[in-house]
């Protein structure tokens, strides 16, 4: 049979596409969910941005539009991270709940295609989200934006790479952990976006919190995306330092992920916890 002659790489690619197709087919049964997923981040942003722009003059920005633009870029970055985390991480949780995780592992001999497929699926919606945000940004902030497309492209690539590695880390953790999304809430909700400077510049924080924010890679992701769009907060040299820091973080996550995946699979296989949630 044909499958016997295929290389592992080709099988992994085909498996990834199969997962993407499956996710798409399930979503197709509920057309309203396309719109919710595509428009969700935008709908979350709009009331938040309008309200915040009126009350946040304490921010370093001088006008309401600048405040909005500041928040706007913050929401774009965090919506990408949040969506990737939930699409990839929760796909593992869902498979565990449904009992399909073990069959996927048996048939495919690796769960990587399952996560890669979820990442591809998530990326489609991220691109739609970013497209919609771009249209909105162009419409409202046209005169305030000075986009440097080279920097923006590099920043977005790093944003996707970092968020996907972070999501893989989360999904590997979910493979073994008895967890229902607490880590996801810590990473994307509550204080974390604030500490990273989603709505207020981190320079306004007390020194101790400022120090913490500088260790978190998300802070630097926000900075480089903002630098590419509104040239705020940082210098060109700082931009490149941040790029280097983020590349190192991505590489560390990549290596750590590989070790964690093997470790988690071994632990799941040792205890047979394919359905433990």
């Amino acid at each position, binding site marked *: 049979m044909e499958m016997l002659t*295929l290389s592992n790489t080709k099988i992994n690619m085909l498996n990834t596409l199969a997962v993407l197709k*499956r996710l798409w087919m399930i979503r197709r049964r509920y057309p309203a969910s396309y719109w919710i997923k595509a428009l969700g981040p935008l709908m979350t942003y709009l009331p938040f941005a309008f309200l915040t722009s009126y009350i946040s003059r304490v921010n370093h920005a001088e006008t309401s539009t600048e405040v909005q633009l500041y928040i706007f870029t913050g929401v774009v970055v965090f919506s990408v991270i949040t969506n990737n985390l939930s699409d990839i991480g929760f796909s593992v949780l869902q498979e565990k709940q449904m*009992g399909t995780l073990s*069959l996927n592992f*048996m048939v495919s001999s690796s769960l990587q295609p399952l996560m890669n497929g979820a990442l591809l699926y998530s990326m489609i919606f991220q691109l739609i989200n970013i497209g919609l945000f771009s249209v909105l940004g162009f419409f409202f902030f046209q005169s305030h934006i000075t986009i440097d497309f080279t920097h923006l492209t590099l920043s977005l690539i790093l944003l996707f790479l970092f968020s996907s590695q972070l999501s893989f880390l989360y999904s590997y953790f979910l493979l073994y952990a008895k967890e229902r999304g607490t880590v996801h809430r810590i990473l994307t909700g509550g204080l974390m976006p604030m500490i990273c400077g989603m709505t207020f510049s981190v320079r306004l924080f007390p020194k101790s919190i400022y120090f913490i924010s500088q260790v978190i890679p998300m802070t630097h992701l926000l900075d480089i995306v903002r630098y590419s769009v509104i040239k705020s907060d940082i210098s060109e040299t700082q931009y490149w330092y941040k790029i280097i820091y983020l590349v190192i973080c991505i590489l560390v996550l990549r290596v750590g992920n590989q070790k964690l995946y093997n470790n988690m699979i071994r632990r799941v296989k040792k205890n047979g916890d394919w359905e433990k949630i």
Partner: protein
Amino acid sequence: MIVFQNVSKVFDIKQGKKTVSQMKALDNISLSIQKGEFFTVVGPNGAGKTTLSKIVANLLLADEGHVYINHTDVQKNPNKVKRSVGFCMRADRSIYWKLTGRQNLEYFGALYGLYGKDLKDAIEKAVKDVDLKDRIDDYVERYSSGMKQRIGLAVSMLHDPDILVLDEPTTGLDPGISSEIRKTIRRMVDNEGKTVLFTTHMLHEAQQISDRVAILNQGRIVVNDTPAQLIETIKPGMVLEMKVIDFNKDFLHTLKQYPSVTDLYYSDLAHNELLLRISCSHEENIHEIIAFVSNHCRRLKDIKKEKASLEDVFISVVNEGIDDDGNAYTFKH
């Protein structure tokens, strides 16, 4: 060909994060299943059947020992093994309910590395084999339990594997559907030369379809042979089963001394009721035995006379019976 070589598996029993005890799920299992053989592992719930299947499926790591499929170590080279083995666990939990049967097959077929015409042909063949042609484009959530099980079976056969590992594929199904599934699997062994490792707690099922049966109890293989041979060597003759109501247990001792009674097992049921299974070497003494028991109780009911079966072998070697739900109940000797 599947070979189990001294396979043992121990699970930690935990309370919170603390390990409070250990449970030996498999204890030094050594087995060899030949090509084209229908091999069944029977045992009550908790005997270790699913653990055994999961180790073959590479879902569990054995603590000790090795499993070889066609001379390849399952744990060392899972990708190679995957291509020659099809697994079917409880299908109601391992297929996507929000997809149609066909979409499920397309998905898992793609995971097996099948595409294009190969995938289409494989789906057609699998659907035909499990007789699901009429409902294949329906959503799985609308399927009956039997249909879900059949689609699970179709998934396991998609890549035309030499070996099928089927973990309790008939559990929870009505007898008609179970029988259909058994026939389908048996047909694949007879016509296509497939090797089947089948687990069940239904002893009559194992006796009916298996070339060879292993009785698994508390993680150990107690006996392992063809059903006919097991019956012949362990339980020849007839078996009389009856329910005895309002009795004095002393009569059991006298009954054991009866010349043609070779063995006697009983299990306490509710309300002063006893389930009695008597093995007899001579059929002509049966009426005499019934009369004797009848004289020592208020009432007898559900009297059955049958040839000794795998169930009797099981009771004889394990001192337990298995109820319809797969739970063990004790028989006294």
